[in-house]
């Protein structure tokens, strides 16, 4: 005779707990032209979550529509250089539907002569 408790389904729960990282975005987002969520919504969400200011770059391209990037990064690198880097290095890995998070580690090498 089967015990009464084994007649119903058994529920097994597994949990993976991880700290919610704030900020959820480190340096920037590259937003595809056909992305399901648009730039304005993402920008508003970022502004609510993160105190850092994000710069909005509009891109004239069939894959990438916009880039949201931390303003502080643009103090060390011009917009043109950044856009050129993303178009050359990031764009080949994305489709128009994607939204990619980008972490940029910028190292500046300076050489100079001092008297």
């Amino acid at each position: 005779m089967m015990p009464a408790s084994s007649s119903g389904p058994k529920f097994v729960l597994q949990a993976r707990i991880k700290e919610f990282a704030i900020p959820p975005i480190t340096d920037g987002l590259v937003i595809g032209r056909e992305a399901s969520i648009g730039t304005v919504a993402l920008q508003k969400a970022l502004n609510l979550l993160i105190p850092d200011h994000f710069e909005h770059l509009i891109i004239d391209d069939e894959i990438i529509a916009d880039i949201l990037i931390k303003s502080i990064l643009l103090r060390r690198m011009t917009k043109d250089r950044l856009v050129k880097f993303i178009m050359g290095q990031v764009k080949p890995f994305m489709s128009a539907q994607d939204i990619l998070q980008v972490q940029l580690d910028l190292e500046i090498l300076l050489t100079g002569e001092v008297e």
Partner: protein
Amino acid sequence: MTGLTVEDALTPNIVAVHEDMRPRNVAIGPLCEVFAVFKELPSSLAARHPPFLGLIEPQRVGRYPLRIFADLVPRQHPFMFERSTPLAHVVSRFEHVSANAVAVLGSQHQFVGVVTRRSLLETLLEHEHRLRRSNFNAPAGPTMLAPELPPLEDTTPSGTLRSAVQRLATEWILSENREQQHLAGDIHDRLRQLLIVARLHLDQAQRPASRGHTSGSLTIVDQLLEESLAYTRLLIEELTPSGLRTGQIMSALEMLALDMRQGKHQVHVANVPSDVRLSEPITAFLYRAARSFLRQAIRDGVSSLITVSMEGEPASIIRVRVAINGETRTSEPEHASLFEQTIGMCFAGIQARGTLLGIAVSIETSPESTTALVLDVPLQGSSAPL
């Protein structure tokens, strides 16, 4: 074209939405033609003037159902018109762009409504039906004499002469007045509207809310200014035609033909008598009449021949014949530019002016699809041309 303005063609099938709303949170009726997106959404659009962000067509909403409306507004700002703009401008704009809707703003740049292709068509059809129902009669031709002038009693030869001079002076003043009204009307309908729309777009570009859309608005402003400049050049050419600078009828007609050929129309001058000399007013009239006729009647794929000949034995008439071989352009207003409808002389205008100058004006048509404007200038004497 019809006296209608953009305000007459506003669509009622418009849904006003807040920029942060999502399409699934909005009740959309089956008749919805367009969404108007605002930064704030008051209970009544008429109560306040919320910042207007742009227009969205329903197809675009269906394509990105998860986006908020702010992310559905096209980067390019909608083309905007001031509420008093003649409807003909919207017709012309729809011919050149693929958009289905244009925004209409008031004098304070507040949102007034939207004209869609459908609402435009319905308005024009309704207007046409109304005209038919009211048994519309075309207005009579230009009045040749001022009816309000008191009758002159003096029947002596000097009195009759004085009366004739007075009538001529009156007619001249009326004619000049009509021309000035035409010109003012054309500048209002065309140039002023272009500049108003350019200013609307410029103001929109300068607003903080339009960040990211500035370049699109400035492109439109640039196009509108280019259009205004082109119109200004056309107006100057119309008022002081280069063809009339020499004062000679033959060189004027040759220049007219050359000008038309540069516009890809096959127009040539033939049968040129060697000793045609006409006075300046007659030359100007013949040139303008030929030009108006050609501009209104000629179309692609047909040719035109302008002939100048002496008629009668001995010669008593100089005949200028502007013949178009092939089907002429329809007289539908949509196919003629606004400029031609206003400044250019229509046939009634050509005939009225011709009568004043003693020139017989007629239209000849033949079964071979040739239509010709015939202008007969009587010679005062073989030795003394006009």
